[in-house]
């Protein structure tokens, strides 16, 4: 049964991702008083990139892309199989690192700059996600996702501040402003194309698909904060993603120093307060 869930998740996740990404682009356009593309635009983009002439900048780059995609797919599969949160986290971290390695392989300065920035982004959000997972462990007594679903009260009641911390990591992972310093969601405000500069054609299509998987995974992790009712989960996800789009539209891109300073200080402070509260309620 678990395998069936995992398989269904891996097959259905990219389609869900296309709709989320399409909705994202339409809403972003509406916020800017534009009409925006059709909702299936991400699908058109991927299909077009797939059929482009292959142009490979380094012979190991395709391997990096395949590992990135495989890691994203496996982590989504593990999530739907209600597996271990730490395992899911480390699998997606391996994928993220391979994307950076692929960009580092090519001596183009734009690719190198993008890869360096992506590394700093990974350095910024990974500790925060670990802290959030630790908070989930303290509330449920286990790193298993099934333990979260066994709770009779939503996690958000125990971890309200850690949810905000998770929001920071979400913004970085979704490549939204002000933290889109390695490769912006919006192509026109980019230093060539950041970490994606040297990936083209089918490689880029695979990266886009992997990004759809990552979006689904990160929204899935977000849904763990409200597991007691479907309506609550949907409302929480919609509100979170809408907040991401609003923040993306009202913020300018910031420097990596600002990102490190603001995300780590606010993130760690909020986590400390939340942990102190858990301690006071005897959760340790």
């Amino acid at each position, binding site marked *: 049964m678990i395998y069936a869930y995992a398989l269904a998740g891996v097959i259905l996740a990219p389609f869900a991702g296309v709709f989320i990404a399409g909705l994202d*682009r339409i809403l972003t*356009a509406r916020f*800017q*008083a*534009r*009409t*925006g*593309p*059709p909702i299936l*635009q991400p*699908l*058109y*983009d*991927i*299909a*077009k*990139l*797939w*059929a*482009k*002439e*292959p*142009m*490979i*900048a*380094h*012979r190991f780059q395709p391997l990096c892309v395949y590992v990135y995609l495989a890691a994203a797919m496996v982590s989504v599969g593990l999530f739907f199989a209600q597996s271990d949160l730490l395992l899911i986290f480390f699998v997606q971290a391996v994928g993220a690192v391979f994307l950076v390695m692929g960009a580092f392989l*090519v*001596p183009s300065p734009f690719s190198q700059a993008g890869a360096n920035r992506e590394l700093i982004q990974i350095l910024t959000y990974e500790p925060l996600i670990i802290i959030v997972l630790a908070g989930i462990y303290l509330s449920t007594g286990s790193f298993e996702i099934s333990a979260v679903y066994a709770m009779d009260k939503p996690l958000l009641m125990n971890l309200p501040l850690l949810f905000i911390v998770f929001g920071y990591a979400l913004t970085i992972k979704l490549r939204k402003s002000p933290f889109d310093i390695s490769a912006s969601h919006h*192509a*026109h405000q*980019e230093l*060539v*194309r950041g970490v*994606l*500069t*040297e*990936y*083209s*054609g089918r490689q*880029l299509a695979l990266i886009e698909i992997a990004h759809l998987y990552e979006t689904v995974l990160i929204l899935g992790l977000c849904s763990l904060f409200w597991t007691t009712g479907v309506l609550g989960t949907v409302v929480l996800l919609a509100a979170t993603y809408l907040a991401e789009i609003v923040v993306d539209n009202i913020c300018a891109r910031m420097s990596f120093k600002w990102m490190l300073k603001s995300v780590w200080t606010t993130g760690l402070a909020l986590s400390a307060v939340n942990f102190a509260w858990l301690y006071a309620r005897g959760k340790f």
Partner: protein
Amino acid sequence: MFKKIMERSRIKSPWLVHYDCGSCNGCDIETLACLTPLYDVERFGVLNIGNPKHADVLIVTGSVNTRNRHVLEQIHRQMPSPKIVIAVGSCGLSGGIFKEAYNVVGGVDRVIPVDVYVPGCPARPEAIIDGVVEGLSVLADKQRRPDAANGAVAVDHTNSEILYESR
């Protein structure tokens, strides 16, 4: 079926890269005006991508001179096929008012093959959008006949270096 989806996707998602060969910036401002809420070319999936390796459409403004012709050739070479080139403005078409200058090569088509010509000084945003839409039919045609996409054109490559060969 997949082939059909890809053919449809090709014309529904043209990503463009814009290169200024030394124009007065009039045409560049009009090109960027197409992205504003008034015209909003993202309705048709058009994105200004800024990276030739991801682009399908190359929009060139300004008259080509002996210095930047190599840059133009290199950008064109870095774009994976199928691709189209759109020359925008009087200078891009023929060299315009700078045609007689000692360092000016002439229009864009003296250096790389041009598929669509958009006249005007500067070209109006409506005309540029028209040019891109016109170019999409050329793009669809190139997809159906792949040989045409790599068709040889009279281009002088003797002085240009290949800086980006695969390593």
